[in-house]
């Protein structure tokens, strides 16, 4: 199980945000830019009042993910709950929410690059010899 130590990270770096942008785009979750974004412009056309437009922007998946990640970083939520939070916020299937949460955990919250590498590569370790079992002759 991947364990996140809240002492390790206090804020998201520009590279972390790049990762989130990439994930949002990868899973077609919605716009990641506020300006010059055709998709957002289409969404905002349905808004009748400025308040509704603001609501649409605030509810964009990218914004929601970022909100949840900030909560985790400030200790208000747990990293373990990320998938359930995403499922609820973004109205995703369990499988999709788990998948996105796993990718975010691996790519954003694992601090040490060596550790990250180890998990991603999943090196095969030879099974330990059982000294108590007698060999079959």
């Amino acid at each position: 199980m991947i364990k996140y130590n809240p002492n390790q990270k206090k804020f998201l770096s520009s590279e972390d945000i790049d990762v989130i942008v990439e994930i949002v785009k990868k899973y077609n979750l919605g716009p990641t830019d506020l300006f010059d974004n055709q998709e957002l412009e289409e969404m905002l056309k349905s808004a009748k009042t400025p308040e509704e437009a603001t609501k649409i922007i605030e509810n964009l998946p990218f914004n929601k993910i970022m909100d949840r990640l900030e909560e985790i970083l400030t200790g208000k939520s747990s990293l373990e709950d990320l998938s359930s939070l995403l499922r609820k916020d973004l109205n995703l299937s369990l499988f999709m929410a788990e998948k996105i949460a796993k990718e975010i955990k691996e790519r954003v919250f694992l601090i040490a690059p060596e550790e990250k590498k180890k998990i991603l590569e999943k090196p095969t370790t030879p099974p330990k010899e059982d000294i108590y079992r007698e060999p079959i002759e």
Partner: protein
Amino acid sequence: MQRTIKQLFFFFTLFIFFLFPKVVKAFNVSDFGEIIISLLSTLGLGAPIGYLISFLFRLPFLFLAIVGFFIGVIAIFVGGLIVPPFVNALIDLGLNQTVFKGFLGTWEIVKDFALSFVRIFLLLIGVATIFRIFEYDARKTLVPLIISALLVSFSFPISTTLISWGNALTNFISTALGVGGSTEGYLGTDLTEIYDTLLNALISHLSTTFDRFITFTDLQTLFTKDNVIFALISLSTLILGLISIYISFVLLALGIVFVLRLVFLTCLVIVSPIAFLTAGLRTREIRQIFGGFLNWDGWWATFLEWVFIGVILLIWLKVGVLLLGITKELDFKLNTSCNVEDTDINNVCNQEIGFIAEQLIKFLPALTFALAIHIGVKTSPGVVKQAVESAIGMVKLATTVAITAGTFALGGAMASVGAATRAWGAARLAGVSRRSAFGASVKAFGKEWARVGPRIGRSALSMALSEIPPELGKIMPEPFKPGIETVESIKKGVGWTKRMVVLGREGIKKEMEARMEELERKRAREEIEEVYKKHGKEGLEKMIRSRWTSEIAKGEATKKLLEEGKLSDDLIEKDEFKKFLRTKEGGKYLNDVLKLRVDLAPEFINPKTNRPFTPKDILDEITPKDVIKIRPKAIMDPEVVSAMSPTHIERIIRAGTIKQKDALVESYTKIIAEKTGITLTTSTRENLRKDVSENHEKIRNTIDTLRESSDPLDVNKAEIIKKIGDAIWQRRL
């Protein structure tokens, strides 16, 4: 009578201004000079008038010869008569042991002062023991304190005994090496030969000079030979005279070192009680009170240096005397051949350059002797070394200047000779009279003055000096290298004179200024390194702000702060610093400073456009990598941010410091306020994001409007607003 004179004057004027030109025109004669010379010839006044004309060309060379002669006389007088006995007396005085006794009273005052410290410490130990404060430490200090008291009380006999050992050793070395003694003195008798050589050269030169000056030879000889010999003789006298002065300087420096030895040792003996006190009590406090050579470490090192400096110098003196003997026996062959087109000039050139070379060889033993002492004197401690180097540097400079003047005069003479000879030959071939040929040569005199001469001058001088240093290099062992380098540097000086011909007067002036500047810059760098090491950036800032600091030093200090990345905003904003940046020296660093504070760009004039800099002028020179060096104060200026490229903004967003990012946000809010009238909340990032989201439409419309503008700056501004707005929303800022 008066009337007759008036009439004569009238007719003369009429003839000169009206009739004579008409006659010339009628006979189609274009050369006035030819007519005048023919007229003089007819009247039998050729010789005296010819001499008077040539007198003008003889005078500068006579002047040069007189200067050379006087320098030679000074060199003989100073070097031959004054310096040797004076130096011997100075060395004797420097080794005098009785002087110190005269300062016994002063030493006692210092001793009592030092002992008063011992008493105070004893009292403190007593008090500490009674009240049992640091009892163990106090008792531990007792032994060194007693040792200190003993050393202080006996510091005079100890230090004077050491000096007497130093003197005894110096005298022993003097006797063993055979330098010094009551009859010959320390410098020996061989030196007089140098001045005999110079004196003989001067006498022969003087007689040759006056012979050439007084005797009326035909003008062809004057231009082809006499003046060249004049120039060469003057030059050789100047060179030999300056070498003699150099030798005198070195010898004088030797004597001065011995006198300074006495002065320094006297001072060191007087302060010896304090130094001995610090030897026993090696506490931090005592070291802080008595620093430098009052402290044992400094005192002992300085004392030993000065006590035994005599031994070292006498060894070098002996080396010099030995070299004087060795180099006398060496047979140097100098390749002296001029490469001049004209055969006559070539012969004269070979003859006289050969003469200079021979004279230099005669001086070589003396030069090697002086160089050996020069090296020895340069090993002397601190202040003396600097003084000697300055004195010798001045002689080197004077030599270079003299050689430069000589090159110029010689080159000019050679050129005149070449041009005149060619004109003479051409006129003779054309079948005109001898006097007409003279007229033609006079006219040709000025035409190719500088064409041939510089080349001849250069080759002559380089030949005269080029052979010597390699020969010295062959015969001298490793420790003599500094001396050979000195000769090499003189040679380089001659090389520098060559450039005078190419660069001209203004060019050489600039070159000299550049050299001086380089020297000052080197010193400034050393000082700056020291100040930076001791006082850090504050020390350098103080230097820059001081009105007593030179522009060059300010420039170097600014450079250092820029290199270290420690040029503070406070300093940049100071009026005196801005004033410095507007100077020629400060201008060198203006762009680098403005790259940090782009917001200040409009306060300075762009030399390329002659208008104030715009932030864009500076930003265009900043690479994306260096953007993060821009100070937050500059980024706070919306004008600066508006002029940045999207790449610059991207770099600050990704790699900038928190302060830079905050400054970027502040500028953004100002730009938005100006363009849309919306005041964005910056109290928290969350509120800012919310404001940006709420005003999305207005901001987007502003971006669209700016994009449609014909002003490229507005189009750029649109991209900046978009970029920063997205970054705020994405929580990158």
